């Protein structure tokens, strides 16, 4: 019986969980005040690896011949082939990207080689591995949630809402959206998504989150027929959107449309100047992103421009929360192993190089210690490869990156031994005290909310992150309540 399989979801008492909290909770002014907390002068950047990133080839178990491979490495070699279409990363492939050992098995781990840039002339020389060596990257292993889903959409939604059992009081807003609506009002613009729609984890209908593709194209599109007519157009536009959704019987979509249009007008006047400001003041850093020439680099540069705007107190520029995504991780076929022209290699090197350049830019701005980057994907992939790719899987690693992040390996590698996999060939989510205990995504989010956003853990528990309701089987469900991820080597907090 595969208890982890989401298909058994509703048979296990989850439906009863809906009654835990009333839907009116967030409307209560006292609760809102109690929720008040602050990100201060910090920034949170969420990077979504869209499609289901193969965690096993992101942080891979390795060994040092002629010693024998350990437990994880043996299982890895049984699951990942050599030869044409094979996805196995050899110890040689992983020699430049070694990180700490798995705290449970004590076997050595390494990043995929795509996370190390060997080009000394690149502004991203050594890539994410360099940041790891500087102690700025936390690798959190085995991240997942109970009753995992193999559906992209469903699993993505669970990660974005942090609501795996569908507790109704928490539905309709992202996990960061629930934080934002408790701490910001309709006239604030605390968040920016890089892209054409608002990221679901930031989604809510109380405060402004802009969706920006490129700052320089974010100006309001007035026509050039008459300069003197523009103020009248602006006035009329502002009135139409201020009035939208204010009538009797207005629907949520009308209210949301009105608020978004209003925030768009404000943003279209305050954000485009950040582009030229940055290009003037930080030309050499801008060139570094150009040298990478990838969409992730370009998106992170837009975030750097906004951060620079906040730091230099530009009017109406107050964003602290950012989201961007990189697609292409649904590698059912032609995934590639260590070859530099492989799909997975290209994905990892794009992200690695872009983060390195972005981090260095932030460091030079003096805000690296104010920065936290959270990297996630909706699931990992099947332990055993198919012909030359991997199908959908379960728990995978997350990265938390920043100047005050305590780098290292957190959590435990999932048990990838054939005998431990479930009927579908995926690793099992478990909270039992054995050495392969999973890291619940709510522990990661809770640690960020408590230690980065200064939110009271009691409030986190009562209103942002639903616990799995008792009395579910403690081996398969999550009841942890401290939100204090610790580095196993010295038991210190994730954030210094």
């Amino acid at each position, binding site marked *: 019986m595969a208890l982890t*399989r989401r*298909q*058994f*979801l*509703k048979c296990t008492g989850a*439906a009863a969980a809906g009654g835990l909290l009333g839907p009116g909770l967030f409307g209560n002014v006292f609760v809102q005040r109690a929720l008040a907390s602050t990100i201060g002068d910090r920034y949170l950047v969420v990077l979504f690896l*869209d499609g289901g990133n193969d965690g096993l080839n992101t942080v891979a178990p390795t060994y040092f011949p002629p010693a024998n491979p350990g437990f994880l490495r043996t299982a890895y070699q049984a699951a990942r082939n050599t030869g044409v279409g094979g996805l196995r990363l050899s110890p040689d492939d992983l020699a430049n990207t070694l990180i700490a050992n798995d705290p449970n098995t004590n076997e050595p781990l390494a990043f995929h080689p795509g996370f190390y840039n060997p080009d000394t002339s690149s502004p991203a020389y050594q890539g994410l591995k360099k940041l790891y060596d500087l102690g700025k990257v936390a690798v959190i292993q085995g991240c997942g949630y109970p009753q995992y889903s*193999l*559906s*992209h*959409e469903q699993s993505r939604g669970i990660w974005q809402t942090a609501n795996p059992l569908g507790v109704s009081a928490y539905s309709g807003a992202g996990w960061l959206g629930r934080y934002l609506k408790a701490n910001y009002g309709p006239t604030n613009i605390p968040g920016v*998504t890089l892209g*054409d*729609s608002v990221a679901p984890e930031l989604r809510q209908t109380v405060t402004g989150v*802009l*969706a*920006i*593709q490129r700052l320089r*194209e*974010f100006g*309001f*599109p*007035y*026509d*050039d*027929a008459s300069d003197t007519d523009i103020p*009248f*157009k602006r*006035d*009329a536009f502002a*009135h*139409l959107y201020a*009035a*939208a*959704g204010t*009538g*009797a*019987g*207005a*629907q949520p*979509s*009308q209210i*949301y*449309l*009105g608020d*978004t*249009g209003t*925030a*768009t007008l404000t*943003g*279209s006047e305050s954000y485009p100047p950040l582009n030229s400001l940055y290009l003037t003041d930080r030309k050499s850093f801008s060139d570094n992103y150009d040298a990478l020439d990838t969409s992730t680099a370009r998106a992170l540069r837009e975030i750097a421009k906004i951060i620079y705007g906040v730091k230099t107190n530009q009017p109406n520029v107050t964003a602290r929360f950012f989201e961007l995504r990189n697609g292409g991780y649904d590698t*059912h*076929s032609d995934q590639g192993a260590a070859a530099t022209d492989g799909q997975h290699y290209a994905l990892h090197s794009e992200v690695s190089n872009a983060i390195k350049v972005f981090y260095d830019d932030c460091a030079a701005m003096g805000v690296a210690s104010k920065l936290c980057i959270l990297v996630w994907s909706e699931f990992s992939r099947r332990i055993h490869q*198919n*012909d030359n*790719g991997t*199908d*959908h899987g379960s728990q995978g690693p997350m990265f938390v990156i920043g100047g005050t992040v305590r780098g290292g390996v957190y959590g435990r590698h999932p048990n990838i031994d054939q005998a431990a996999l479930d*009927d*579908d060939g995926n690793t099992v989510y478990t909270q039992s005290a054995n050495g392969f205990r999973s890291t619940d995504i709510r522990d990661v989010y809770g640690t960020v909310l408590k230690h980065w956003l200064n939110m009271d853990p009691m409030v986190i528990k009562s209103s942002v992150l639903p616990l799995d309701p008792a009395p579910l089987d403690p081996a398969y469900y999550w009841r942890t309540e401290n939100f204090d991820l610790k580095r196993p080597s010295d038991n210190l907090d994730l954030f210094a």
Partner: protein
Amino acid sequence: MGDETTPLSPAEARHLLRRTGFGAQKKDVDRILLLDKTRGRAADRLLNFRSTPFRPNGSEFPNAHNKWIKYLTIARSPLQEKLVLFWHDHFATAISKVADVGLMADQIQLLHERCKGNFKDLVKAINVNPAMMEFLDTVRNDKDVPNENYARELQELFTLGVDDTNGNPNYTQEDIVQIARAFTGWGYDRGKAVLDEGNHDFMADFPARGPKVIYQSTGGFGSGGRSFTVNGEGTAEIDTVIDIIFAHRDSNGRNTVARRTARRLLEYFAHPNPDTAVVDAVVAQSGFGSSPDSWDVGALVRAILVHDAFYETGAAAPFGAQTKKSVKWPIDYVVSTLRLLGMRLKGRDQYVDGGSFRAALDGLSDMGQVLLDPPSVFGWDWETSWISSAALLARYGFARDVTSARGHGTTAFRPERLIDLDLTDPAAIVDAVLGVLGIPDQLTDGEKTTLVNYLTENGTKAVDLHDGVKANGLFALVLQSPAYQLH
């Protein structure tokens, strides 16, 4: 309770046209009110189109895309196009992975031919559609290492859905594995599907894997499930898989595919989150799924278009508590605007003064909807997901571009052909523009006053529409208004 004999009000006629086509033009509204008169006769006429086999030809993606956009602006059966767009989202297939514009064009032609026909036959055709076989890896589904991609999405997205309305699962991972076995060995040659029998999972080759059996714990087939091993040639086996899926029953004992498809079409044509009672009513009314061969999409759409739930959304401003608006898709926004303004798009490089194909493609991309290239197998996210500052700015920019397209041909914005430029009464001008754009009843009095104030510069100026500024500006403002983003 209304039914097919219920007469349509002007507001309802406009609503019907907005949802089944691209904007409510006065001549079409008049035809409904004068000739059709009732919900049933109007629905019958809208659905009585010949399924023109349009194919977006083009050697490169932008050409094919533009060809389709151009066709949408002139297509004589808007409802056919609305249905094709629905199926394009439902069977979302993206050029970015397929990488063959000819295969994509073939699929769009298939959707045109089958858009209102038998849904089960359509799914069987999609099984062996080369673009789909590329997109969901059927061509990479080998007997030794089955690829689950198509088998999963076939159930999750095209037919059953993950869960039924009671939250019970409709299928298991084991069902995905078993169905994936059936699709092993399929590929295509010169645009035609072919089965490589040497690469197919025949039971005789794999006795250890046992017979292919699905739905042993769901579907209402009993504990034995349904076996579908067919060791014949051609599509017999994968057709049988579809036959079984279309006989699947949910935990209420109702046909799963019929209810889910009806729900999706209600969400598309009417509004999000339709009541289960409404879903069941349109299924019953149309007989959709009532027998193994009764999968007539046209009948299902007709049942939706005569149901009260559809007209809940047709009310005039300021919208009662029960009325439900829907956010226009970007393609609807662009095509409706062009059709209502009587405009065509210009050649690909004429960008500067707007209204070009390139402007349309760039604009649609920023609005979040590029035809032939949906963001994923899930298609596009609807409703409030269309609303963001980036997407709204792209809509505002498109409105600006088309209303400032100069010239004399059909590619120019020519307000003199839409309204009487000699009008001087600002309220009458506002009403005339709202009429052209098909939303005379969708703005509140306060919103109309805002537009009047724009024309008169807050009462300080007499209106002269010949000034080359205010007519264009007013059209742009209405196209940018909250009301015009909804329908």
